[in-house]
């Protein structure tokens, strides 16, 4: 604004004080006659000659000034009307972050401006800077995994002002259930961590949607979300909630059932997951850490309501209450319903409607802590997921439904060097179709009890050693209500495990190096499995940030109870002679980041997984499916990602590409060299995000490559491309914080199949409103 005024009204012409124009006395008399260059008409060319005549007389000036004034005013008004927000002046907030014990700078702290949500990360000098802060009353939130989350007092920032706020953070003493103080850092080889600020910025409501945004391969049937790591199927990705596995027996974990609002941190393990978690992590693992109570957290509530296509409705309520007679409480309730009926193109009957595809989800989450027992946290989770499963297009079973009910209790006692956790989990799965020709009514119940013990030492400020043990007792019940003779008696499985991890950090001139060795020994029902993990990483952070990491790991996956003991029926028969799957994986990753006004990060990861005994359900000559062990399979792949973002977070772009080829190398079989079906040959995701004032606009593109659907590679499903758009805006009204979101998924209304003859819904629209008190 000031610059516009200066341009319109130069100093010698602007109105200052009383005299708008120079007085007669101020004018310098000139004895020389006026002479002009050029055409010389007054007001054109240049005036030279006597200064007196260089300036118009007062009267003339007054006339000319007055005659120009309306134009200037009009121009000013027009400029104001046409000016976009970017032309406005904002405030800047900067500062330095240190700890209050050693007074050393802290890098990697997420600094968030509240309520607008702009976030930045402190650099290696502990400094942060947030440009383009909306003038007004704001506060700053400082979040780091290793320091107590802190919020500054409210401060008033004016436009054009550069406010400074230095802060000293206190090291954390009690944190999340499965974290040990120094072992889990973002730079750990084979692990990628996503913290609260990143999670809160997501426009998705569940963990599956969040990981999809980050470029991971998430397979969806339009309702459930399954993560695929390492080129392997989602059944071989282990998902844990606070250290407790939530995969159904032999199945993939549905990440759509875990609400993002109840999550504090997500750890994605692309290597070495078995050395940490044991069975089932052939492709990798995801450990989801629930939100914990914190005395520093303000009391509050947040209500979200969403509606969308296919009769979608979703409600969630989040409550935070501190100091209920010393108790801290954090609770979350979510309910979602979608009728999910949609049109699809039947191969013979033309446009049809896919009905009875309803989905109903209800979830509860509760965490309790006490200010006097800050090392102890109790948490409980429950979700109930009931949905219709009309089946493939040409085999309609309109009355079929499935219901999954999961309940989990966890008690966690954690100090900086010791963690003891106990948990109880109960998963019920109910599959039913009482009216079709092939009726079924099957109930599955899994009960798991787990006890974890972990002790950590930090030696010489360079070496972290962790030793621990785990005991897991599982019971499986399988009840066939229509055919009781097919029910299984209770089957139990007990796992005892010990593990050790060591990490040595060392500076080699300009390089920071880290050497990790981990080993876990599992004893399960009389068999013993060892899972080693070796990792080397070298980092360089002078002119550019560069990391190179190499991993080698071994893992195992036990056969599921269904695969072993499925009762002989017309569709399938189990195989009690199945062997466990074993994998050897190795990968090399290079990442380079250039940081400045624009930060560019490039990451390339090359991985190879050799899997022995991969379990595959194959059809027999009598039409029954039975699981068999493939002697050898190899999954070869490359993951590439590129992220570009401006320092003020106004613009960011991400690109992720995965190319993989899983090949059957079983020489004794008829499929040697064939691609193992159902995994796409490539996947790609690109997103562009614009932040403007208090709004965020995002465009996302995704590609899922072609998939073979027969072991002989005689048939495949084609690739499909999807485009999504989302808009999110924030506002503050009457002391509450509102977030409005509008999303259009599959803008192009692409009709695709994720499985043969299972069509997905087309374009969908979702709107949501969140009110935070």
């Amino acid at each position: 604004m000031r610059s516009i005024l200066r341009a319109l009204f130069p100093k010698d012409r602007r109105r200052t004080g009383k005299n708008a124009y120079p007085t007669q006395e101020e004018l310098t008399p000139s004895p020389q006659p006026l002479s002009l260059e050029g055409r010389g008409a007054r007001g054109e060319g240049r005036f030279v000659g006597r200064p007196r005549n260089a300036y118009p007389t007062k009267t003339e000036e007054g006339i000319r000034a007055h005659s120009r004034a309306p134009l200037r005013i009009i121009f000013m008004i027009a400029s104001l009307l046409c000016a976009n927000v970017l032309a406005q002046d904002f405030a800047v907030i900067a500062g330095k972050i240190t700890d209050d014990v050693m007074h050393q700078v802290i890098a990697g702290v997420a600094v968030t401006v509240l309520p607008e949500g702009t976030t930045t990360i402190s650099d290696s000098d502990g400094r942060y800077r947030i440009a383009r802060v909306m003038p007004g009353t704001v506060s700053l939130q400082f979040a780091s995994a290793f320091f107590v989350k802190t919020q500054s007092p409210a401060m008033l920032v004016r436009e054009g002002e550069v406010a400074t706020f230095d802060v000293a953070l206190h090291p954390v003493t009690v944190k999340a259930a499965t974290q040990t103080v120094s072992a889990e850092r973002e730079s750990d080889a084979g692990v990628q961590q996503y913290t609260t600020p990143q999670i809160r910025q997501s426009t998705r409501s569940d963990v599956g949607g969040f990981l999809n945004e980050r470029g991971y391969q998430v397979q969806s049937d339009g309702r459930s979300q399954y993560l695929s790591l390492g080129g392997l199927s989602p059944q071989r990705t282990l998902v844990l909630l606070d250290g407790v596995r939530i995969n159904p027996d032999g199945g993939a974990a549905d990440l759509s059932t875990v609400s993002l609002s109840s999550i504090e941190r997500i750890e994605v393990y692309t290597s070495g997951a078995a050395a940490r978690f044991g069975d089932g992590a052939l492709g990798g693992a995801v450990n989801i850490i629930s939100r914990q109570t914190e005395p520093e957290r303000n009391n509050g509530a947040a209500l979200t309501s969403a509606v969308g296509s296919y009769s979608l409705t979703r409600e969630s309520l989040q409550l935070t209450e501190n100091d209920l007679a010393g108790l801290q409480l954090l609770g979350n309730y979510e309910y979602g319903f979608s009728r999910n009926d949609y049109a699809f193109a039947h191969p013979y009957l033309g446009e049809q409607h896919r009905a009875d595809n309803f989905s109903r989800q209800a979830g509860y989450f509760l965490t309790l802590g006490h200010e006097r027992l800050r090392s102890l946290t109790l948490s409980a989770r429950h979700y109930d997921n009931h949905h219709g499963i009309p089946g493939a297009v040409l085999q309609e079973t309109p009355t079929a439904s499935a219901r999954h009910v999961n309940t989990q209790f966890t008690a966690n006692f954690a100090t900086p060097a010791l963690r003891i956790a106990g948990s109880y989990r109960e998963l019920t799965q109910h599959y039913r179709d009482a009216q079709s020709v092939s009726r079924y009514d099957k109930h599955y119940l899994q009960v798991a009890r787990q006890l974890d013990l972990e002790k950590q030492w930090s030696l010489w400020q360079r070496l972290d050693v962790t030793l621990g043990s785990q005991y897991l007792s599982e019971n499986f019940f399988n009840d066939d209500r229509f055919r009781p003779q097919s029910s299984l008696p209770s089957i139990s499985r007990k796992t005892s495990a010990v593990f050790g991890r060591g990490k040595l950090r060392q500076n080699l001139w300009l390089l920071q190096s880290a050497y990790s060795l981990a080993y876990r020994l599992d004893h399960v029902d009389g068999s013993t499995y060892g899972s080693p993990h070796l990792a080397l990483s070298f980092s360089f952070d002078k002119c550019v940030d560069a990391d190179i990491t190499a991993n080698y790991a071994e893992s195992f996956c036990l056969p599921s109870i269904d695969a072993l003991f499925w009762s002989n029926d017309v569709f399938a028969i189990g195989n009690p002679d199945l062997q466990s799957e074993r994998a050897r994986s190795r990968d090399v990753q290079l990442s380079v980041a250039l940081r400045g006004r624009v930060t560019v990060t490039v990451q390339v990861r090359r991985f190879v997984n050799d899997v022995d005994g991969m379990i595959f359900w194959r059809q027999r000559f009598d039409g029954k499916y039975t699981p068999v062990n493939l002697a050898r399979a190899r999954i070869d792949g490359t993951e590439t990602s590129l992220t570009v973002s401006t320092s003020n977070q106004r613009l960011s772009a991400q690109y992720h590409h995965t190319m993989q080829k899983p090949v059957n190398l079983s020489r004794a079989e008829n499929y040697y060299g064939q691609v193992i079906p159902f995994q796409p040959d490539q996947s790609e995701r690109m997103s562009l995000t614009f932040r403007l004032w208090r709004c965020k606009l995002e465009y996302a593109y995704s590609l899922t490559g072609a998939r073979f659907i027969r072991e002989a590679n005689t048939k495949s499903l084609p690739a499909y491309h999807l485009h999504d758009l989302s808009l999110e805006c924030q506002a503050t009204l009457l002391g509450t914080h509102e977030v409005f979101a509008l999303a259009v998924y599959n803008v192009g209304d692409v009709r695709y199949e994720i499985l043969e003859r299972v069509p997905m819904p087309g374009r969908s629209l979702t709107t949501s409103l969140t009110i935070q008190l």
Partner: protein
Amino acid sequence: MQFRYIMLVFTILFAQAAALTGDLIIVNGLGETADFVELTDSTIKQNVATLGLAPNDFLVASNTGIAINSISNDLYFFALPSMSPLGTLFLGNSRNPYTGTLIDNNNALITNLMSSTVTKVNIATRSVIGEYSVGRSPEGVVILGRNAYVCITNFDFGNYTYGQGYVQSFDLVSNVVVRTIPVGTNPQDIAFGYDGYLYVICTGNYAAQSGILYRLAPESGSVVDSLRIGGAPGSLAITRSGIMFLAAGGFVGHGEVYTVDLSAFAVLRGAGNPIYTGPGVTAVIAVSDSTVVSCNFSDDMITEIAPSGRILAIFRTGDGPVAAAKYPACYVIMGDADGSGEIDISDAVYLISYIFAGGPASVTVEAGNMNCDTGVDISDAVTIISFIFSGGAGSCGCAD
């Protein structure tokens, strides 16, 4: 008249019979493709056509092939021998078409396992003529005259049990079931023997009840005899030589084929001493008057087998062969003495040469038996001539 024909004999006395030709179309159930096998050249072309979901069977109607796809509930039509697609026909949701047979060269009858119906299909127009109810869970079917004989397995998908098995006689004119004949458990396949009887193989329930072969008299609709086979045979093929071959599965180590001497109605090779071949034998089909080809699902092979059990030929197929069909539908027609592929005057000359002048015998023993009586004699030559010049009765059937 006969003199003229004898003269014709001398003019073409040294005429050589055409070489025997025959192709097989193999249905690969796992790969969902079809292979084309040329038996005379011993060559196979794998995956020459893509089929629907879970193909079960293949029919040949003159120069049109029909693939029966159970999960996709449709039929795929192909031009033969090129296997170029002609079109598809959707039978309706949740039908699960199992197998079929030709009513004539223009019409086919398909059994629908899940809907417990049979569907009449017009081949030329690729359209459904009508769908009619039969007993629960029908499978094999064969046609004689105006009657279709349908195997009713009575399988209950709700509790996975087999009820009483039947053979139902379905009138193709009135489109209703006219007779129900009780047989054993799980009758899966049915065929007419060259002895005029109807043979049904009841597989059993894969547990306590094992395979039993039933012999029926179609006119009276009664069970004439039964023979305990053992094991779980599910498919049958009858050769002109009077030997029945049964596909009996076997998926651990080796596949099993049983044989039965129909004239003696006795088991030659049974569950105790089966013919061993590739594992997972799902189907057998007669390819000559004495040999069959078995489809070995588990090792992706088909094998030609002699009654002695000797393996005569092996072909590697696509993924999971489950069924086979002959192209042409008859390799040798009764009366096609020289194996030329059609009945013409050269067949008459061929027979006369054989009968009177010591010429070569017909390409197969039964190929010269135009009138399907007790053997090859001058009456067959007369019948051929009558067929050609006076519009008399044509061939009485296949010679293979």
